[in-house]
């Protein structure tokens, strides 16, 4: 499997490619795509759960990265985090626009996804920010961590988490809020 973050640390950096993209450099934008597309496609596919839709969402995400490149600010996070936020927002908007909730299993792409409820997260190539987040996630009680991962990685709503964990909705909501609070206190410490 490709390791986009490792590649990203070789020259040219994602930062400099975003800067060049902001100035309308299409070749730089293509390099940015080559270094980041598999990561963003992985993020999107988890949430929209269908390859055809994921490809549409990937296109929307990169068009937005192109148009918003001038707004990128390194102090707000790593380039990959910035692009992943755009990709996740496009994927979540698409998932929530659907009239009925996504089927959790039927439309999933098992080859790409493995277990539909649980991504195998790989932190080995992660940035310092990501390692700090992992440390704080590891400090949470398991049920709070599971809820946060299901939401962020799989794009589950409160209702879907409640079904997946066979736990009442109110309990799930309160686990999430407590987990988020602890995570904030840990990360901002």
């Amino acid at each position, binding site marked *: 499997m490709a390791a986009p973050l490792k590649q990203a640390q070789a020259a040219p950096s994602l930062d400099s490619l975003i800067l060049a993209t902001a100035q309308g450099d299409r070749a730089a934008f293509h390099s940015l795509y080559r270094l980041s*597309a598999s990561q963003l496609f*992985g993020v999107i596919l988890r949430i929209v759960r269908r390859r055809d839709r994921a490809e549409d969402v990937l296109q929307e995400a990169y068009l937005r990265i192109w*148009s918003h490149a001038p707004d990128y600010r390194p102090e707000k*996070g790593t380039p990959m985090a910035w692009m992943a936020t755009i*990709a996740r927002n496009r994927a979540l908007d698409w998932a929530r626009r659907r009239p009925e909730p996504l089927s959790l299993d039927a439309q999933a792409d098992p080859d790409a996804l493995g277990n539909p409820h649980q991504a195998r997260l790989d*932190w080995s190539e992660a940035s310092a920010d990501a390692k700090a987040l992992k440390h704080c996630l590891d400090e949470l009680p398991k049920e709070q961590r599971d809820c946060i991962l299901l939401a962020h990685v799989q794009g589950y709503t409160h209702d879907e988490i409640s079904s997946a964990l066979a736990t009442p909705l109110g309990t799930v909501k309160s686990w999430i*809020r407590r987990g988020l609070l602890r995570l904030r206190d840990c990360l901002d410490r």
Partner: protein
Amino acid sequence: MSEELDDSEALAAEYVLGTLDREERQRAQARLATDHAFARMVDDWSRRLAPLSEAVPPVEPPPTAWPAIEAALPAERRATRAPPRPLSSWASIWRSLGFWRWATGGAVALAAGLALYIAVTPLQPAPESRYVAVLESGPGQPAWLVSIDIAARQMTVRPFGDLALADKSYELWLIEATAQPKSLGLLSPDDDRAIPISADLGSAVPRAVAFAVSLEPAGGSPTGLPTGPVLYQGAILPVGD
């Protein structure tokens, strides 16, 4: 260590986490456009949670993905484009009879295309509660489509084409014959935007005559009334079957 997240912060965190359902998410996005403190909380939560995406297993996209993206890139960079030329001053539109004539004519000219759009739109609420407006920068130059559903207390605003702006905001106003313009919030040039409407605004729509979009400082009008030039406007039309 605090005891619990306050409501705004919990909403910001849950918006970033992605657990909100469709209506909650749209309400949060509408608030994001108008509430700077809330937007900052969303930024902070994005900064905290986004690195999680780095740990998600990558998946190679199909080889068709890049050519489709490249083909869809705009011909020129949006950010360097000059903002649209002001149509006229607010005061002159407000008084001008020509505006009403033009707004009505433009709306009629677009009626056929619009009817098609409405026919295929998936939302199907009661017809008497629905209105549309095409906001134009000049006759035959549509820029935004506004559809309102009073019963559902929601409007959506869809941009046509490339309307991106640097360092400024578009603000949408409801124009009544005998009252001050009412702000409906900021518009996003990139997206369809869903805007929740209050009961007061909902009841004002049937007697309102038009929408207008003014160019305002980033973040919106500092005064609560339009301060910049009016770039787009259009009459409000009820939608029947």
